[in-house]
C-alpha cells in the first residue's frame, strides 16, 4: 500500500512536469472552464427565469445549483483524473506499448489508471467546489449531511471511474473505443439537472439503468438532507459491485490479450 502511494507521487510528478512543457495552454484551458461554468449557469437560470417558475421537479434554484456544482466537479474529475488515463489504454493496445505495462512488476490496472493527469482542467474542480459551496451557503446543511454527501460523492467517483474503465477495456478487442466513451459523456450530460426534473420514465432509466442519478443528484440530496435511506445505501453498493465487476473484466481482458487471439 505504501509502495503504491509512493508510485502515485512519482507518477503525478512526472505527468505534472510533462505538462508544464505546455504551460501556454493554461490560459486557453481556464477560458474553456469559465465558458463551461458560464453556460451551465445560463442554462439553469433560463430554466428558473420563466414567469411563475420557482422550482423545477421540486428543487429550488439553490438546490438545483448544487446539482450543477456536482456536475461541474465531476466533469473536472473526469477530465483531470479519468479521461487522460483511459484514452491512453486504446492507444497502448494499438501501438503495442501495452506490452511494457504488462511487463512491469506492479498491478497493471493501477498502472494504467494513475499514470496521467490533465492539470489544465484543474480549475474545473475548483469551480465545481466553489459552486457547491455557494449553493450550500444558502441552504441548511448539517455536518452529518455534509459527511454523507462526501461519502456518497466518493462512491459516485468510483462509479464514473468504473464505467470509463469498463468502456475503455473493450479496446483489447475493438480498436476504436474513444467513441464509446463519447457516448457515455452524452448520457452524462443529463446529470447537469436533478433527475426529478425529467419525465417519470426517463427518471427511472437514469436511476436504475444508467446510474446517472447517483453521480450528481444523490450527493446533492444528501447535502440538503432530502435523501432517502434506500438510495443512500444503494450508491456504495453499486460502486462496490461495479468496481469488482470492472476489475474482473479488466483481468479477463488482460488474460485474453496474453493468450492473444490476434
Amino acid at each position, binding site marked *: 500500500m505504501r509502495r503504491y502511494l509512493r508510485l502515485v507521487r512519482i507518477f503525478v510528478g512526472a505527468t505534472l512536469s510533462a505538462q508544464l512543457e505546455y504551460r501556454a495552454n493554461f490560459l486557453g484551458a481556464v477560458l474553456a472552464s469559465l465558458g463551461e461554468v458560464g453556460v451551465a449557469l445560463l442554462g439553469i437560470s433560463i430554466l428558473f427565469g420563466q414567469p411563475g417558475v420557482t422550482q423545477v421537479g421540486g428543487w429550488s434554484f439553490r438546490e438545483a445549483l448544487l446539482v450543477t456544482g456536482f456536475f461541474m466537479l465531476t466533469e473536472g474529475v473526469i477530465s483531470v483524473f479519468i479521461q487522460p488515463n483511459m484514452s491512453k489504454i486504446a492507444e497502448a493496445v494499438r501501438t503495442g506499448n501495452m506490452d511494457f505495462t504488462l511487463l512491469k*512488476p506492479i498491478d497493471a490496472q493501477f*498502472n494504467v489508471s494513475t499514470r496521467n493527469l490533465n492539470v489544465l482542467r484543474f480549475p474545473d474542480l475548483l469551480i465545481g467546489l466553489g459552486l457547491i459551496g455557494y449553493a450550500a451557503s444558502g441552504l441548511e446543511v448539517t455536518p452529518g449531511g455534509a459527511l454523507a454527501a462526501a461519502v456518497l460523492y466518493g462512491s459516485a467517483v468510483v462509479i464514473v471511474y468504473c464505467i470509463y474503465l469498463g468502456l475503455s477495456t473493450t479496446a483489447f478487442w475493438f480498436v476504436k473505443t474513444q467513441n464509446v466513451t463519447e457516448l457515455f459523456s452524452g448520457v452524462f450530460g443529463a446529470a447537469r439537472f436533478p433527475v426529478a426534473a425529467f419525465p417519470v420514465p426517463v427518471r427511472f432509466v437514469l436511476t436504475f439503468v444508467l446510474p446517472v442519478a447517483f453521480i450528481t443528484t444523490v450527493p446533492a440530496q444528501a447535502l440538503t438532507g432530502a435523501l432517502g435511506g434506500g438510495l443512500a445505501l444503494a450508491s456504495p453498493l453499486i460502486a462496490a459491485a461495479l468496481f469488482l465487476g470492472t476489475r474482473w473484466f479488466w483481468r479477463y481482458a488482460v488474460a485474453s490479450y*496474453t493468450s492473444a487471439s490476434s
Partner: protein
Amino acid sequence: MTGDRGGAGDAAVRVRDLRKGYVVHEKEPGFLGSLRSFVSRKSRVVEAVRGVSFDLAPGEVVGFLGPNGAGKTTTLKMLSGLLHPSGGEVRVAGFEPGRRENAFLRQITLVMGQKQQLIWDLPALDSFLVNQAIYEIPDAQFRATMAEFTEVLGLEGILKKQVRKLSLGERMKCELAAALLHRPKVLFLDEPTIGLDVNMQESVRAFVQDYNVRHNATVMLTSHYMADVTALARRILVIDRGEVVFDGDLARLAEQGGGGKTVRLQLRRPATPEELGRFGSEVRVDGLSAELTVPRALVSERAAALLAELDVADLTVEDPSIESVMASLFGARAGQAGQPERTPEPA
C-alpha cells in the same frame, strides 16, 4: 542438440515442446465479405510455434534467427509472459512466465526495437526515475547503474534533454538503459538495432556485450542485422515455421548451411561461368572477380586446379557469410512443395 549446455536444473531458460496456436478469422474483402463473415465466421487455427525446445545457461548469449513470421516474436513473448503458450513448458529464471509474478518480472526485460516506453515530453531521466519506483530499485544501486550505463552507452548530456528532441539512436540508447535499469538476469532483445545507423548499432552491441559480461546475464537476441548476431552470440538458434531447425555454434551453422566454402578469385583474364562451373557451384562472375562454392572436403584439390588451369592473380577461401547460409537454408526449404503459408506474428 540441446541438453549439453548446463544441467536442466540451473538453466536460466528452459523450454520444452513449446507450442502456440492462434485462431484466425478470415474475411473476404469488401462490404459483402464483411456481411458474410458477420453471419458465419470462418476461422482456423494457425500454429505459430510448434514444439520448440531448448535450454539457455546463465550468462549465455544466443542469437535467435529465422525468416519473418517464423515465430521468433511469438516465442519471445511467451518467454516474457506476454503470451500464454497453448502447450509445452517454459521456465525462465525458475519462474513460469505466464503467471507474471512480480518477482519474475524483476528478473527479466524485453526490448522491442520498434516500440518505446519513455515519456515523450520529458527528459529520459524522468522515465528512469519512474522505473526506479516501479522496480523498487534502491537509491545506491540506481546511482551505480546510472553511472555504469552513462559511461558505457555515452549518455552524458542526453539524459536531461526531452525524449522528443533526441535522435533515433539516442532514444534507443535511453530505451535500453530504461529496460535494463533494474539489472535483469534474463534479457530478451527483439530487433534492438532496427533502423539505427552503423555506429549506433555498434554501440548498442558493445553495451549489450558489456552488460552480459558484467552481470552474467542471459541474452536472447533476434536481429535482421547479422553483424549483431555474429558480434554477440556464439550460439545460434534458427527457427523456421515454428520449429527449431538449427541449434549450435555459429561456425557449425556455416558448415551445415552451405556445406561448402566460398572461393574468391581475382583473375588476370576473364573467364566464363561455364569454365568456372567445372570447379564448383553457385558461380558468380563480375568482370575480373569471381566467386564460387566448393565442397569442404575438396577445397585444396580444387584450389590447386584453379591455380593451375586459369590465370589467377589472387585466391582466397572463406566461410560463407551468415546471410548466404540463411538464404541457402531457407531458399532450399522454400522450394519444397505443399508448404503451409507463413503464420502471422501477433500484433
